[in-house]
């Protein structure tokens, strides 16, 4: 629906002969507006628009309908460049245990994603277990237990323990002893202003040394997403992003900006609450939806 606004603008602007200065300005404004409405961070959106102008001026636009097609494909390419044009799969060690840690802002969908990821990995023949080090949110342990019971994945938690690092080391040790080869660690929500919680996240990653740290990002996030993600990436070595709640009306530009800010690929998209709603990320369809 948003894409149709961009589509209409492009069609109108490129109707006649080669576009004049005024038409180019109009086109840039329409593109910028579409990207901002899709929640792409302001500077990134401006960068994309300038690049599209430069590229379409460089090779000169073809006439008629193919002109509109080439502008759209340039926009598509510029956005895809941010995401990497290939698929980045989740790496699981074939010969030794893999530790995955989920971090992110409060309510982004970490706990729900932990269960989804556990099922996804279990389907690939791994023996999966989940540890929750969230000792703050009431009912966090019960939530994860209930989510994982349907897939018979064991959950370790110790909500009474004030030390998240201790819960993590105890849980990981227990599951390694029991020969689980993939352990997912769910953490409490935190944002960039909560310095003590950022410090806790750093301690967790330093002590546990996860093979992959995944930043879980709510697909509804707007302009704030970019700087929040930078802050996470500054504190700890974020390896990838999982975007959640893409079954809403959001276009996902915030999560794209988060991935750019952390300089990591998006590996999965979640588009629903149930445990099967997790798909491997496809940059082409994501960008297609972003610009409609």
């Amino acid at each position, binding site marked *: 629906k948003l894409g149709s606004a961009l589509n209409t603008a492009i069609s109108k602007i490129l109707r006649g002969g080669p576009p004049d200065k005024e038409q180019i300005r109009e086109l840039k404004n329409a593109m910028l507006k579409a990207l901002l409405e899709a929640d792409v961070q302001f500077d990134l959106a401006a960068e994309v628009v300038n690049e599209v102008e430069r590229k379409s001026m460089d090779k000169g636009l073809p006439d008629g309908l193919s002109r509109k097609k080439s502008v759209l494909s340039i926009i598509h390419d510029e956005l895809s460049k941010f995401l990497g044009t290939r698929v980045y799969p989740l790496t699981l060690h074939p010969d030794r245990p893999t530790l995955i840690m989920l971090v992110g802002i409060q309510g982004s969908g970490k706990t729900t994603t932990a269960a989804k990821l556990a099922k996804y990995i279990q389907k690939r023949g791994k023996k999966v277990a989940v540890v929750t080090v969230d000792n703050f949110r*009431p009912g966090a342990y019960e939530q994860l237990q209930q*989510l994982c019971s349907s897939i018979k994945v064991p959950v370790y938690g110790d909500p009474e323990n004030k030390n998240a690092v201790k819960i993590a080391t105890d849980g990981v040790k227990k599951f390694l002893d029991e020969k689980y080869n993939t352990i997912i660690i769910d953490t409490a929500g935190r944002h960039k202003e909560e310095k003590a919680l950022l410090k806790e996240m750093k301690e967790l990653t330093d002590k546990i040394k996860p093979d992959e740290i995944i930043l879980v990002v709510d697909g509804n996030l707007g302009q704030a997403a970019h700087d929040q993600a930078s802050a996470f990436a500054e504190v700890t070595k974020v390896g990838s992003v999982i975007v959640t709640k893409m079954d*809403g009306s959001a276009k996902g530009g915030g999560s794209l900006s988060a991935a750019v800010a952390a300089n990591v690929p998006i590996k999965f998209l979640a588009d629903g*609450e149930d445990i099967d709603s997790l798909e491997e990320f496809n940059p082409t369809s994501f960008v297609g939806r972003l610009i409609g």
Partner: protein
Amino acid sequence: TDFSIKSIAKVNKELKDILIKNEVAVKTTDEICKRFAKKLSKIEYTRFSNTRSIVLTTLREVLLEILTPSQSIDLIELVKIAKERKNPLVIAFFGVNGVGKTLSIAKIGKYLMDNGYSSVFAAGDTFRAGSIQQLQKHGDNLNIRVIAQNYGSDAAAVAYDAINHATSKGIDVVLIDTAGRMETNSNLMAELQKICKVSEPDLKFFVGDALTGNALISQAKLFNQKIGIDASILNKIDADVKGGAAVSVTHISEKPIIFLGVGQNYEDLESFSVEMILDNILP
């Protein structure tokens, strides 16, 4: 002298950038720029005028108009009125997933208690894993009773249960928790309509996340259209939010923001202040 079309357009372009960077949704930004240009075009100034202060004053007027759409809601006043007519004040909380509905209920339960009023929580999220235990633990922490049934039970029935309990026990307020739901999911929106039809809340509070981008427009629009919003609560303001979401949600719902969530503790609840948002956005 009038402001020229060209100078208004120039200021408007700068204004648009400022608003977007302050997290105001695009649709709301367009509306603000439109109203701002209209007001500015009607202003006459002399060579002694401070045009910069005229621009800032005009902008402040437009933002103030949008941020104070209607009668502000004084919760304590409404509780007093309900007490006088010997009925509990019933409040339903709704919004998309993960915005802080459940924690907001706990915070407001505490706020009411601090003001000498009793409340009961209705565990109306009978769907999500751990939702009932989460609310029950908040209730235990605050010594506030939670009315719940089993997972999978009818949320409207739980709300009805809680209202009967409050009426018979003389409890002042019923706070109804509901499951998070995407505003675009028509089945879930129909379920929420049923909950409200059965419980007939005196107040319907839309709960939003201050970090939300343009989706907030669709959320506010559809929840208002299908359910009706009496006031909004915006959470996670403490995440270094610029405040634009407050402008967007008020613009679309045309209803006031009653509370801001500024942290994860029970006392992290602030009554909405227009000045706080204006100070953030205005240069």
